[in-house]
Protein backbone atom coordinates (compact mmCIF):
# COMPACT_ATOMS: atom_id res chain seq x y z
CA UNK A 1 0.00 0.00 0.00
CA UNK A 2 1.35 3.41 -0.99
CA UNK A 3 0.96 6.54 1.15
CA UNK A 4 -2.79 6.99 1.61
CA UNK A 5 -4.08 10.23 0.04
CA UNK A 6 -6.40 12.68 1.71
CA UNK A 7 -9.77 13.32 0.09
CA UNK A 8 -11.64 16.51 -0.42
CA UNK A 9 -15.39 16.39 -0.98
CA UNK A 10 -17.21 19.61 -1.77
CA UNK A 11 -20.61 20.02 -3.32
CA UNK A 12 -24.34 19.67 -2.99
CA UNK A 13 -26.82 16.94 -3.90
CA UNK A 14 -30.51 16.90 -4.73
CA UNK A 15 -33.24 14.44 -5.66
CA UNK A 16 -34.81 15.98 -8.78
CA UNK A 17 -35.56 19.43 -7.37
CA UNK A 18 -35.60 18.48 -3.69
CA UNK A 19 -32.24 19.33 -2.05
CA UNK A 20 -30.70 16.51 -0.02
CA UNK A 21 -27.91 18.57 1.52
CA UNK A 22 -26.73 22.16 0.91
CA UNK A 23 -23.17 22.89 -0.23
CA UNK A 24 -20.83 21.09 2.16
CA UNK A 25 -17.08 20.67 2.45
CA UNK A 26 -15.69 17.45 3.91
CA UNK A 27 -11.98 16.88 4.42
CA UNK A 28 -10.87 13.33 4.98
CA UNK A 29 -7.29 13.50 6.18
CA UNK A 30 -4.59 11.18 4.95
CA UNK A 31 -4.01 8.12 7.12
CA UNK A 32 -6.56 9.02 9.78
CA UNK A 33 -10.20 8.51 10.76
CA UNK A 34 -12.82 11.06 9.78
CA UNK A 35 -16.31 10.52 11.12
CA UNK A 36 -19.42 11.82 9.45
CA UNK A 37 -22.17 11.96 12.07
CA UNK A 38 -25.79 12.76 11.45
CA UNK A 39 -29.40 11.65 11.81
CA UNK A 40 -30.88 9.04 9.46
CA UNK A 41 -31.79 10.37 6.03
CA UNK A 42 -29.51 13.43 6.18
CA UNK A 43 -27.47 12.23 3.20
CA UNK A 44 -24.35 10.97 4.96
CA UNK A 45 -24.51 7.57 3.28
CA UNK A 46 -25.03 9.33 -0.05
CA UNK A 47 -21.76 11.20 0.47
CA UNK A 48 -19.99 7.91 1.17
CA UNK A 49 -21.54 6.29 -1.91
CA UNK A 50 -20.58 9.25 -4.09
CA UNK A 51 -16.97 8.87 -2.93
CA UNK A 52 -17.13 5.13 -3.63
CA UNK A 53 -18.52 5.76 -7.11
CA UNK A 54 -21.74 3.82 -6.38
CA UNK A 55 -25.27 4.56 -7.64
CA UNK A 56 -27.07 7.10 -5.49
CA UNK A 57 -30.00 8.32 -7.57
CA UNK A 58 -29.12 11.95 -6.71
CA UNK A 59 -27.76 14.77 -8.82
CA UNK A 60 -24.40 15.79 -7.40
CA UNK A 61 -22.78 19.10 -8.16
CA UNK A 62 -19.26 19.49 -6.88
CA UNK A 63 -16.05 17.55 -6.86
CA UNK A 64 -14.32 14.68 -5.10
CA UNK A 65 -10.53 14.86 -5.25
CA UNK A 66 -7.66 12.84 -3.89
CA UNK A 67 -4.62 14.87 -2.73
CA UNK A 68 -2.33 12.92 -5.10
CA UNK A 69 -4.60 13.58 -8.06
CA UNK A 70 -5.29 9.86 -8.59
CA UNK A 71 -8.72 8.28 -9.07
CA UNK A 72 -10.76 7.66 -5.92
CA UNK A 73 -13.28 4.82 -6.55
CA UNK A 74 -10.55 2.44 -7.78
CA UNK A 75 -8.69 2.77 -4.47
CA UNK A 76 -11.65 2.30 -2.15
CA UNK A 77 -12.59 -0.60 0.11
CA UNK A 78 -16.19 -0.57 1.32
CA UNK A 79 -17.80 -1.98 4.44
CA UNK A 80 -21.55 -1.65 4.96
CA UNK A 81 -23.98 -1.92 7.85
CA UNK A 82 -24.77 -5.52 6.93
CA UNK A 83 -21.78 -7.80 6.53
CA UNK A 84 -22.64 -8.58 2.87
CA UNK A 85 -21.07 -12.04 3.16
CA UNK A 86 -22.06 -14.28 0.27
CA UNK A 87 -23.92 -17.21 1.88
CA UNK A 88 -22.61 -19.74 -0.65
CA UNK A 89 -18.92 -19.07 0.07
CA UNK A 90 -17.01 -20.05 3.20
CA UNK A 91 -15.08 -17.52 5.27
CA UNK A 92 -11.90 -17.76 3.19
CA UNK A 93 -13.96 -17.67 -0.01
CA UNK A 94 -15.61 -14.45 1.14
CA UNK A 95 -12.32 -12.90 2.21
CA UNK A 96 -10.80 -13.61 -1.22
CA UNK A 97 -13.91 -12.49 -3.12
CA UNK A 98 -12.26 -9.37 -4.53
CA UNK A 99 -9.55 -11.34 -6.33
CA UNK A 100 -12.14 -13.71 -7.83
CA UNK A 101 -14.23 -10.79 -9.03
CA UNK A 102 -11.21 -9.23 -10.73
CA UNK A 103 -10.16 -12.52 -12.31
CA UNK A 104 -6.99 -12.73 -10.21
CA UNK A 105 -5.72 -15.84 -8.42
CA UNK A 106 -7.08 -15.76 -4.84
CA UNK A 107 -4.29 -15.55 -2.22
CA UNK A 108 -5.68 -18.25 0.03
CA UNK A 109 -2.70 -18.52 2.39
CA UNK A 110 -2.69 -14.78 3.01
CA UNK A 111 -6.46 -14.82 3.59
CA UNK A 112 -6.12 -17.67 6.08
CA UNK A 113 -3.42 -15.77 7.96
CA UNK A 114 -5.61 -12.67 8.06
CA UNK A 115 -8.62 -14.65 9.27
CA UNK A 116 -6.44 -16.15 12.02
CA UNK A 117 -5.21 -12.69 13.04
CA UNK A 118 -8.81 -11.60 13.51
CA UNK A 119 -9.39 -14.59 15.81
CA UNK A 120 -11.38 -16.70 13.37
CA UNK A 121 -8.84 -19.47 12.80
CA UNK A 122 -11.29 -22.25 13.67
CA UNK A 123 -13.97 -20.78 11.43
CA UNK A 124 -11.94 -20.35 8.23
CA UNK A 125 -13.97 -22.94 6.33
CA UNK A 126 -17.41 -22.31 7.77
CA UNK A 127 -20.26 -20.72 5.90
CA UNK A 128 -21.54 -17.32 7.14
CA UNK A 129 -24.77 -18.90 8.41
CA UNK A 130 -22.71 -20.85 10.98
CA UNK A 131 -21.20 -17.67 12.47
CA UNK A 132 -22.49 -15.16 15.03
CA UNK A 133 -23.17 -11.53 14.08
CA UNK A 134 -19.89 -10.36 15.57
CA UNK A 135 -17.91 -13.09 13.81
CA UNK A 136 -19.56 -12.25 10.52
CA UNK A 137 -18.64 -8.58 10.88
CA UNK A 138 -15.05 -9.63 11.62
CA UNK A 139 -15.03 -11.63 8.40
CA UNK A 140 -16.28 -8.52 6.61
CA UNK A 141 -13.37 -6.59 8.17
CA UNK A 142 -10.95 -9.30 7.00
CA UNK A 143 -12.40 -9.00 3.49
CA UNK A 144 -11.93 -5.22 3.64
CA UNK A 145 -8.31 -5.61 4.82
CA UNK A 146 -7.62 -8.23 2.15
CA UNK A 147 -8.45 -5.60 -0.48
CA UNK A 148 -5.50 -3.61 0.89
CA UNK A 149 -6.86 -0.29 -0.34
CA UNK A 150 -5.54 3.10 0.72
CA UNK A 151 -9.03 4.50 1.29
CA UNK A 152 -11.58 2.70 3.47
CA UNK A 153 -15.24 3.72 3.55
CA UNK A 154 -17.27 2.42 6.48
CA UNK A 155 -21.05 2.84 6.33
CA UNK A 156 -22.25 2.22 9.91
CA UNK A 157 -20.54 -1.17 9.94
CA UNK A 158 -20.91 -1.77 13.68
CA UNK A 159 -24.42 -0.43 14.26
CA UNK A 160 -26.10 -3.86 14.24
CA UNK A 161 -23.82 -5.25 16.95
CA UNK A 162 -24.47 -5.24 20.69
CA UNK A 163 -22.61 -2.68 22.80
CA UNK A 164 -19.75 -4.95 23.87
CA UNK A 165 -19.22 -6.44 20.44
CA UNK A 166 -19.40 -2.98 18.90
CA UNK A 167 -16.64 -1.58 21.12
CA UNK A 168 -14.47 -4.65 20.41
CA UNK A 169 -14.98 -4.28 16.68
CA UNK A 170 -14.07 -0.58 16.94
CA UNK A 171 -10.77 -1.54 18.63
CA UNK A 172 -10.09 -4.19 16.03
CA UNK A 173 -10.88 -1.91 13.10
CA UNK A 174 -8.79 0.97 14.53
CA UNK A 175 -5.85 -1.39 15.00
CA UNK A 176 -5.99 -2.97 11.56
CA UNK A 177 -6.91 0.09 9.51
CA UNK A 178 -4.11 2.24 10.94
CA UNK A 179 -2.36 4.27 8.27
CA UNK A 180 -5.29 4.27 5.88
CA UNK A 181 -7.58 7.14 5.02
CA UNK A 182 -10.84 6.15 6.69
CA UNK A 183 -14.29 7.70 6.41
CA UNK A 184 -16.75 6.35 8.98
CA UNK A 185 -20.38 7.25 8.50
CA UNK A 186 -22.34 6.79 11.73
CA UNK A 187 -25.41 7.97 13.64
CA UNK A 188 -23.83 7.03 16.97
CA UNK A 189 -22.15 9.98 18.80
CA UNK A 190 -20.28 7.49 21.00
CA UNK A 191 -18.70 5.87 17.99
CA UNK A 192 -17.68 9.20 16.46
CA UNK A 193 -16.28 10.35 19.81
CA UNK A 194 -14.14 7.23 20.21
CA UNK A 195 -12.86 6.88 16.68
CA UNK A 196 -12.81 10.30 15.03
CA UNK A 197 -9.57 12.15 14.44
CA UNK A 198 -11.92 14.64 12.85
CA UNK A 199 -15.68 14.68 13.32
CA UNK A 200 -18.18 16.30 10.98
CA UNK A 201 -21.84 16.82 11.81
CA UNK A 202 -24.32 16.77 8.94
CA UNK A 203 -27.99 17.68 8.92
CA UNK A 204 -30.37 19.39 6.52
CA UNK A 205 -28.89 22.78 7.44
CA UNK A 206 -25.42 21.74 6.35
CA UNK A 207 -22.16 20.46 7.74
CA UNK A 208 -20.06 21.68 10.68
CA UNK A 209 -16.92 20.30 12.20
CA UNK A 210 -16.75 19.41 15.88
CA UNK A 211 -13.29 19.49 17.41
CA UNK A 212 -12.54 16.24 19.26
CA UNK A 213 -10.53 16.10 22.51
CA UNK A 214 -6.75 16.02 22.38
CA UNK A 215 -6.62 12.35 23.44
CA UNK A 216 -5.56 10.45 20.31
CA UNK A 217 -8.04 7.99 18.84
CA UNK A 218 -8.99 5.28 19.40
CA UNK A 219 -10.05 6.73 22.76
CA UNK A 220 -10.61 4.53 25.83
CA UNK A 221 -14.30 3.90 26.50
CA UNK A 222 -14.05 5.52 29.95
CA UNK A 223 -11.99 8.58 29.02
CA UNK A 224 -13.73 11.65 30.57
CA UNK A 225 -12.83 13.97 27.68
CA UNK A 226 -14.18 11.44 25.21
CA UNK A 227 -17.41 11.09 27.21
CA UNK A 228 -17.82 14.87 27.41
CA UNK A 229 -17.27 15.08 23.66
CA UNK A 230 -19.84 12.34 23.11
CA UNK A 231 -22.34 14.32 25.20
CA UNK A 232 -21.60 17.46 23.19
CA UNK A 233 -22.17 15.59 19.93
CA UNK A 234 -25.44 14.12 21.17
CA UNK A 235 -26.60 17.54 22.28
CA UNK A 236 -25.73 18.98 18.88
CA UNK A 237 -27.66 16.19 17.19
CA UNK A 238 -30.71 16.75 19.39
CA UNK A 239 -30.77 20.49 18.99
CA UNK A 240 -29.92 20.52 15.32
CA UNK A 241 -26.96 22.70 16.38
Amino acid at each position, binding site marked *: MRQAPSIEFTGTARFDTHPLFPPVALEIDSGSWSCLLGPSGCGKSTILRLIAGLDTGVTFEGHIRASDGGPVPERVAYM*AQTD*LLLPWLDVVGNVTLGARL*RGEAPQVAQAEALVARLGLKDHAHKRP*AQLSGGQRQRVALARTLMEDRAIVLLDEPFSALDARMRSEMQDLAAEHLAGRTVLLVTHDPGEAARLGDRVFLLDEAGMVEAVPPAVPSIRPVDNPDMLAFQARLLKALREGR
Partner: protein
Amino acid sequence: MDGLKRGFAATALFLCLWQALVSFGGLPAFILPGPLRVAEALWKNAGLIAWHAGITGIEVLAGLLLGAAFGAATALLLAVSPAARYLIKPALVATQALPVFALAPILTLWLGYGIWSKVLMAVLIIYFPVASAFFDGLMRTPPGFLDLGRTMGATPARLLWRIRVPSAIPSLASGLRLAAVYAPIGAVIGEWVGAAGGLGYLMLLANGRVKIDLMFAALFVLAVLTLLLHRAVGWGCDRLVARID
Protein backbone atom coordinates in the same frame (compact mmCIF):
# COMPACT_ATOMS: atom_id res chain seq x y z
CA MET B 1 -38.85 -43.09 6.48
CA ASP B 2 -41.93 -41.44 7.96
CA GLY B 3 -42.77 -39.98 4.56
CA LEU B 4 -42.46 -43.44 3.01
CA LYS B 5 -44.86 -44.92 5.60
CA ARG B 6 -47.35 -42.16 5.02
CA GLY B 7 -47.07 -42.71 1.28
CA PHE B 8 -47.80 -46.42 1.70
CA ALA B 9 -50.73 -45.74 4.01
CA ALA B 10 -52.25 -43.21 1.60
CA THR B 11 -51.78 -45.59 -1.34
CA ALA B 12 -53.36 -48.48 0.56
CA LEU B 13 -56.35 -46.35 1.53
CA PHE B 14 -56.76 -45.17 -2.05
CA LEU B 15 -56.63 -48.76 -3.40
CA CYS B 16 -59.20 -49.95 -0.84
CA LEU B 17 -61.62 -47.15 -1.75
CA TRP B 18 -61.10 -47.87 -5.43
CA GLN B 19 -61.81 -51.58 -4.97
CA ALA B 20 -64.85 -50.80 -2.81
CA LEU B 21 -66.22 -48.48 -5.49
CA VAL B 22 -65.86 -51.23 -8.10
CA SER B 23 -67.20 -54.06 -5.87
CA PHE B 24 -70.15 -52.26 -4.33
CA GLY B 25 -70.84 -49.59 -6.93
CA GLY B 26 -71.61 -52.16 -9.60
CA LEU B 27 -69.44 -50.36 -12.15
CA PRO B 28 -68.62 -52.52 -15.19
CA ALA B 29 -64.94 -53.20 -15.90
CA PHE B 30 -65.05 -51.20 -19.16
CA ILE B 31 -65.92 -48.07 -17.16
CA LEU B 32 -63.71 -48.56 -14.13
CA PRO B 33 -61.63 -51.72 -13.75
CA GLY B 34 -60.61 -52.63 -10.20
CA PRO B 35 -57.04 -52.25 -8.98
CA LEU B 36 -56.40 -55.98 -9.24
CA ARG B 37 -57.41 -56.06 -12.90
CA VAL B 38 -55.21 -53.06 -13.59
CA ALA B 39 -52.31 -54.74 -11.78
CA GLU B 40 -52.90 -57.85 -13.86
CA ALA B 41 -52.92 -55.80 -17.09
CA LEU B 42 -49.72 -54.11 -15.96
CA TRP B 43 -48.07 -57.47 -15.30
CA LYS B 44 -49.23 -59.10 -18.57
CA ASN B 45 -48.30 -56.08 -20.71
CA ALA B 46 -45.16 -55.15 -18.84
CA GLY B 47 -42.94 -55.28 -21.92
CA LEU B 48 -45.35 -53.26 -24.05
CA ILE B 49 -45.89 -50.62 -21.38
CA ALA B 50 -42.16 -50.39 -20.64
CA TRP B 51 -41.43 -49.78 -24.32
CA HIS B 52 -43.98 -46.95 -24.55
CA ALA B 53 -42.90 -45.57 -21.18
CA GLY B 54 -39.34 -45.45 -22.52
CA ILE B 55 -40.48 -43.30 -25.44
CA THR B 56 -42.41 -40.91 -23.21
CA GLY B 57 -39.51 -40.85 -20.76
CA ILE B 58 -37.07 -39.82 -23.49
CA GLU B 59 -39.47 -37.12 -24.74
CA VAL B 60 -39.93 -35.74 -21.25
CA LEU B 61 -36.23 -35.77 -20.37
CA ALA B 62 -35.19 -34.20 -23.67
CA GLY B 63 -37.95 -31.60 -23.29
CA LEU B 64 -36.92 -30.86 -19.73
CA LEU B 65 -33.24 -30.48 -20.59
CA LEU B 66 -33.84 -28.32 -23.65
CA GLY B 67 -36.63 -26.27 -22.06
CA ALA B 68 -34.56 -25.63 -18.93
CA ALA B 69 -31.51 -24.71 -21.02
CA PHE B 70 -33.44 -22.33 -23.30
CA GLY B 71 -35.36 -20.87 -20.36
CA ALA B 72 -32.19 -20.26 -18.33
CA ALA B 73 -30.39 -18.80 -21.37
CA THR B 74 -33.31 -16.44 -22.04
CA ALA B 75 -33.32 -15.31 -18.40
CA LEU B 76 -29.58 -14.58 -18.57
CA LEU B 77 -29.98 -12.65 -21.82
CA LEU B 78 -32.85 -10.59 -20.40
CA ALA B 79 -30.90 -9.95 -17.21
CA VAL B 80 -27.80 -8.59 -18.94
CA SER B 81 -29.38 -6.72 -21.83
CA PRO B 82 -31.80 -3.81 -21.33
CA ALA B 83 -32.44 -3.93 -25.08
CA ALA B 84 -33.52 -7.56 -24.82
CA ARG B 85 -35.77 -6.71 -21.88
CA TYR B 86 -37.34 -3.97 -23.98
CA LEU B 87 -37.83 -6.08 -27.09
CA ILE B 88 -38.27 -9.69 -25.97
CA LYS B 89 -39.96 -9.54 -22.59
CA PRO B 90 -43.36 -8.25 -23.78
CA ALA B 91 -43.34 -10.89 -26.54
CA LEU B 92 -42.48 -13.57 -23.99
CA VAL B 93 -45.41 -12.60 -21.80
CA ALA B 94 -47.73 -12.36 -24.82
CA THR B 95 -46.90 -15.95 -25.85
CA GLN B 96 -48.40 -17.06 -22.56
CA ALA B 97 -51.79 -15.78 -23.69
CA LEU B 98 -51.72 -18.54 -26.32
CA PRO B 99 -52.86 -21.94 -25.03
CA VAL B 100 -49.82 -24.07 -25.78
CA PHE B 101 -52.01 -27.17 -26.17
CA ALA B 102 -53.59 -25.55 -29.21
CA LEU B 103 -50.20 -25.68 -30.89
CA ALA B 104 -49.95 -29.48 -30.65
CA PRO B 105 -51.63 -30.19 -34.03
CA ILE B 106 -49.38 -27.62 -35.72
CA LEU B 107 -46.25 -29.10 -34.15
CA THR B 108 -47.31 -32.57 -35.29
CA LEU B 109 -47.91 -31.22 -38.78
CA TRP B 110 -44.49 -29.60 -38.91
CA LEU B 111 -42.37 -32.14 -37.04
CA GLY B 112 -44.24 -35.37 -37.76
CA TYR B 113 -45.28 -38.30 -35.59
CA GLY B 114 -41.84 -38.91 -34.09
CA ILE B 115 -40.60 -37.77 -30.71
CA TRP B 116 -39.58 -34.24 -31.74
CA SER B 117 -43.08 -32.78 -31.87
CA LYS B 118 -43.58 -34.01 -28.27
CA VAL B 119 -40.17 -32.79 -27.14
CA LEU B 120 -40.97 -29.35 -28.52
CA MET B 121 -44.37 -29.42 -26.84
CA ALA B 122 -42.70 -30.10 -23.48
CA VAL B 123 -40.10 -27.40 -24.19
CA LEU B 124 -42.83 -24.85 -24.94
CA ILE B 125 -44.68 -25.67 -21.74
CA ILE B 126 -41.72 -25.43 -19.37
CA TYR B 127 -39.77 -22.66 -21.10
CA PHE B 128 -41.76 -19.82 -19.59
CA PRO B 129 -41.85 -20.92 -15.93
CA VAL B 130 -38.09 -21.58 -15.98
CA ALA B 131 -37.22 -18.32 -17.77
CA SER B 132 -39.57 -16.27 -15.63
CA ALA B 133 -38.47 -17.70 -12.26
CA PHE B 134 -34.75 -17.45 -13.04
CA PHE B 135 -35.09 -13.95 -14.49
CA ASP B 136 -36.90 -12.73 -11.36
CA GLY B 137 -34.10 -14.18 -9.25
CA LEU B 138 -31.41 -12.52 -11.38
CA MET B 139 -33.09 -9.12 -11.07
CA ARG B 140 -33.45 -9.43 -7.30
CA THR B 141 -29.81 -9.71 -6.28
CA PRO B 142 -29.41 -7.96 -2.91
CA PRO B 143 -28.18 -4.48 -3.93
CA GLY B 144 -25.48 -4.53 -1.23
CA PHE B 145 -23.80 -7.52 -2.93
CA LEU B 146 -23.66 -5.55 -6.18
CA ASP B 147 -22.26 -2.45 -4.44
CA LEU B 148 -19.59 -4.56 -2.81
CA GLY B 149 -18.70 -6.21 -6.12
CA ARG B 150 -18.45 -2.84 -7.88
CA THR B 151 -16.13 -1.35 -5.24
CA MET B 152 -13.97 -4.45 -5.68
CA GLY B 153 -13.60 -3.68 -9.37
CA ALA B 154 -15.69 -6.54 -10.76
CA THR B 155 -16.54 -6.55 -14.46
CA PRO B 156 -20.27 -6.93 -15.28
CA ALA B 157 -19.59 -10.48 -16.55
CA ARG B 158 -17.94 -11.58 -13.30
CA LEU B 159 -20.60 -9.80 -11.27
CA LEU B 160 -23.17 -11.85 -13.16
CA TRP B 161 -21.36 -15.15 -12.85
CA ARG B 162 -20.05 -14.91 -9.30
CA ILE B 163 -22.82 -12.96 -7.58
CA ARG B 164 -26.05 -12.61 -9.54
CA VAL B 165 -26.33 -16.21 -10.82
CA PRO B 166 -25.53 -17.88 -7.47
CA SER B 167 -28.01 -15.69 -5.63
CA ALA B 168 -30.69 -16.56 -8.23
CA ILE B 169 -30.22 -20.33 -7.90
CA PRO B 170 -33.12 -20.80 -5.42
CA SER B 171 -35.45 -19.05 -7.90
CA LEU B 172 -34.17 -21.20 -10.77
CA ALA B 173 -34.78 -24.29 -8.61
CA SER B 174 -38.44 -23.38 -8.05
CA GLY B 175 -38.85 -22.93 -11.81
CA LEU B 176 -37.27 -26.34 -12.44
CA ARG B 177 -39.53 -28.03 -9.87
CA LEU B 178 -42.57 -26.70 -11.74
CA ALA B 179 -41.04 -27.75 -15.05
CA ALA B 180 -40.64 -31.35 -13.83
CA VAL B 181 -44.41 -31.61 -13.34
CA TYR B 182 -45.33 -29.75 -16.53
CA ALA B 183 -43.00 -31.56 -18.95
CA PRO B 184 -44.91 -34.92 -18.94
CA ILE B 185 -48.18 -33.03 -19.61
CA GLY B 186 -46.64 -31.54 -22.73
CA ALA B 187 -45.34 -34.87 -23.98
CA VAL B 188 -48.66 -36.69 -23.43
CA ILE B 189 -50.71 -33.95 -25.12
CA GLY B 190 -48.36 -34.24 -28.07
CA GLU B 191 -48.85 -38.01 -28.15
CA TRP B 192 -52.63 -37.69 -28.09
CA VAL B 193 -52.58 -35.48 -31.14
CA GLY B 194 -50.49 -37.82 -33.21
CA ALA B 195 -47.82 -40.33 -32.36
CA ALA B 196 -46.43 -43.75 -33.13
CA GLY B 197 -45.52 -44.55 -29.53
CA GLY B 198 -45.53 -43.36 -25.94
CA LEU B 199 -47.82 -43.76 -22.96
CA GLY B 200 -50.31 -41.17 -24.24
CA TYR B 201 -50.50 -43.03 -27.54
CA LEU B 202 -50.91 -46.37 -25.71
CA MET B 203 -53.78 -44.94 -23.64
CA LEU B 204 -55.65 -43.83 -26.76
CA LEU B 205 -54.97 -47.17 -28.43
CA ALA B 206 -56.20 -49.14 -25.42
CA ASN B 207 -59.25 -46.91 -25.13
CA GLY B 208 -60.15 -47.53 -28.79
CA ARG B 209 -59.96 -51.28 -28.20
CA VAL B 210 -61.90 -51.08 -24.94
CA LYS B 211 -58.89 -52.38 -23.02
CA ILE B 212 -59.68 -50.06 -20.16
CA ASP B 213 -57.49 -52.01 -17.72
CA LEU B 214 -54.48 -51.44 -20.01
CA MET B 215 -55.39 -47.74 -20.26
CA PHE B 216 -55.38 -47.45 -16.48
CA ALA B 217 -52.12 -49.37 -16.27
CA ALA B 218 -50.50 -46.89 -18.69
CA LEU B 219 -51.96 -43.98 -16.70
CA PHE B 220 -50.57 -45.46 -13.48
CA VAL B 221 -47.09 -45.80 -15.00
CA LEU B 222 -47.29 -42.22 -16.29
CA ALA B 223 -48.16 -40.96 -12.80
CA VAL B 224 -45.28 -42.94 -11.27
CA LEU B 225 -42.85 -41.58 -13.88
CA THR B 226 -43.95 -38.01 -13.20
CA LEU B 227 -43.61 -38.47 -9.44
CA LEU B 228 -40.14 -39.99 -9.83
CA LEU B 229 -39.08 -37.15 -12.11
CA HIS B 230 -40.44 -34.58 -9.66
CA ARG B 231 -38.53 -36.22 -6.80
CA ALA B 232 -35.32 -36.48 -8.83
CA VAL B 233 -35.45 -32.85 -9.97
CA GLY B 234 -36.39 -31.77 -6.44
CA TRP B 235 -33.42 -33.69 -5.05
CA GLY B 236 -31.08 -32.16 -7.62
CA CYS B 237 -32.43 -28.67 -6.87
CA ASP B 238 -32.02 -29.22 -3.12
CA ARG B 239 -28.39 -30.21 -3.66
CA LEU B 240 -27.82 -27.17 -5.84
CA VAL B 241 -29.43 -24.80 -3.33
CA ALA B 242 -27.51 -26.42 -0.46
CA ARG B 243 -24.27 -25.76 -2.30
CA ILE B 244 -25.33 -22.16 -2.74
CA ASP B 245 -26.99 -21.47 0.58
